[in-house]
């Protein structure tokens, strides 16, 4: 287990007053909140900051943490001293299975698990705060985001989803276990839509049923398609002569290659719509091709001569005429 420097994570001094810690937390939470942030490691950072705040905002926990001393370095191999928490009374906060997933092993070794009597066994025996005998409660629902390919929405697919499930054993030890599910991705699914898997959430307590698992869909970045709702966009390069004279070109779509007619006198940025070729469904989306004009490079003298002849031929053509710059 590695030591975690909560002060460093929060970017505050070891003697920072509580107000500074709260301010630092709010700032970092806004920056890394997984529902707001687009930073690549937002979720991990948000978790880390939340854990640091959980300790530093609570004077009891902070004092206990401080007692470990300032000589530990972040990521250093850590083992809590046997009597490190002597003389501290921890109040409040129940330690649940959901919390186990939230906090690091380091945190758990200090503030979770067997720390207090009746503290760690809760998850295994069921019932927050120890319910009455024969207590039944439906398991919690779980929610996860998954990345799929755009093609999966066109064809439908089966994908293996691996979830980290927190579990608390009879002695109160918390660990995570990997749980793999093969999930059918229905054809026509869109980003942000959810799939509900009944009974795949947390197990129920007593005779009560398990919760449900919700998977929220997100499309992984595609090298050339963009998705907007059920519409799909492609930037398609064409040559100057294809754009001006018109042409039939092969165009990729997630549903397969299609023949696309480029009308004559097309310009860069022109949008061509292939109706119903977006994500399929009762009202299928459209596929949009946005034209780009690609120029052939002219590495050798003969090529350059050709451009020179064009320049001669199109003497009166001024691409900047619309800008009021003449000549």
């Amino acid at each position, binding site marked *: 287990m590695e030591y975690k420097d909560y002060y460093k994570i929060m970017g505050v001094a070891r003697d920072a007053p509580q107000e500074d810690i709260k301010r630092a937390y709010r700032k970092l939470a806004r920056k890394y909140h997984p529902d707001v942030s687009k930073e690549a490691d937002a979720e991990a950072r948000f978790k880390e900051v939340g854990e640091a705040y959980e300790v530093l905002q609570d004077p009891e926990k902070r004092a206990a943490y401080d007692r470990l001393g300032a000589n530990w370095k972040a990521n250093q191999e850590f083992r809590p001293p046997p009597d490190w928490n002597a003389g501290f009374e921890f109040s409040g906060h129940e330690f649940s299975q959901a919390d186990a997933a939230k906090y690091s092993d380091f945190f758990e070794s200090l503030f979770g698990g067997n720390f207090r009597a009746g503290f760690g066994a809760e998850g295994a025996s069921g019932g927050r705060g120890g319910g009455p005998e024969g207590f039944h409660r439906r398991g919690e629902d779980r929610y996860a*985001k998954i990345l799929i390919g755009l093609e999966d929405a066109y064809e439908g697919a089966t994908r293996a989803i691996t979830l980290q499930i927190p579990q608390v054993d009879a002695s109160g030890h918390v660990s995570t276990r990997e749980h793999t599910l093969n999930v059918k991705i229905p054809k026509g699914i869109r980003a942000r839509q959810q799939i509900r898997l009944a009974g795949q959430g947390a197990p129920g307590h007593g005779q009560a049923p398990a919760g449900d698992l919700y998977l929220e869909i997100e499309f992984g970045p595609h090298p050339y398609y963009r998705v907007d709702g059920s519409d799909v966009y492609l930037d398609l390069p064409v040559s100057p002569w294809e754009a001006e004279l018109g042409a039939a070109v092969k165009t990729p779509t997630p549903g397969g290659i299609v023949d696309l007619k480029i009308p004559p006198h097309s310009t860069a940025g022109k949008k061509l719509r292939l109706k119903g070729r977006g994500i399929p469904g009762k009202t299928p989306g459209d596929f949009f091709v946005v034209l780009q004009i690609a120029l052939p490079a002219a590495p050798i003298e003969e090529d350059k001569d050709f451009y020179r002849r064009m320049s001669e031929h199109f003497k009166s053509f001024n691409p900047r005429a619309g800008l009021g710059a003449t000549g």
Partner: protein
Amino acid sequence: MKSKNGHQGSSPCVQGAQEAPGSAADTPDLSGTLLDDQHLLTVEDVCRVCAVRIEYIEELVEEGLITPQVEQVDALHAAKGHELQSWRFTGMHMRQARIAAHLQSDLGINLAGVALALQLLDEVEVLRMRVKAIDAT
């Protein structure tokens, strides 16, 4: 981390969900329910997923953050004034409610602030898409 707004702290979010290519051989294929616009959820469904109290969903509806459809209820329920029971939500409503609950409890902002944040997030999303389109050309 308990807070006034009814979000019960412990997030039901499964951390570290990963998508692996292909499918594992030894587990059966699961078909779930796709929560599209046709599949409607009750207020209890939404509360359970978001881990919030029913009053919190009421607040969101009052503030106009989410607008459920209203289903005809039988006379018995109507007489008891169970307006809540007639509400039907889409998966998008549920997603919105879940984000709202997280933002409120994690960032300490009030409902009006959450409403603004959600609106701005939607706008940012649209703008990001445009930037992507421009960068590609």
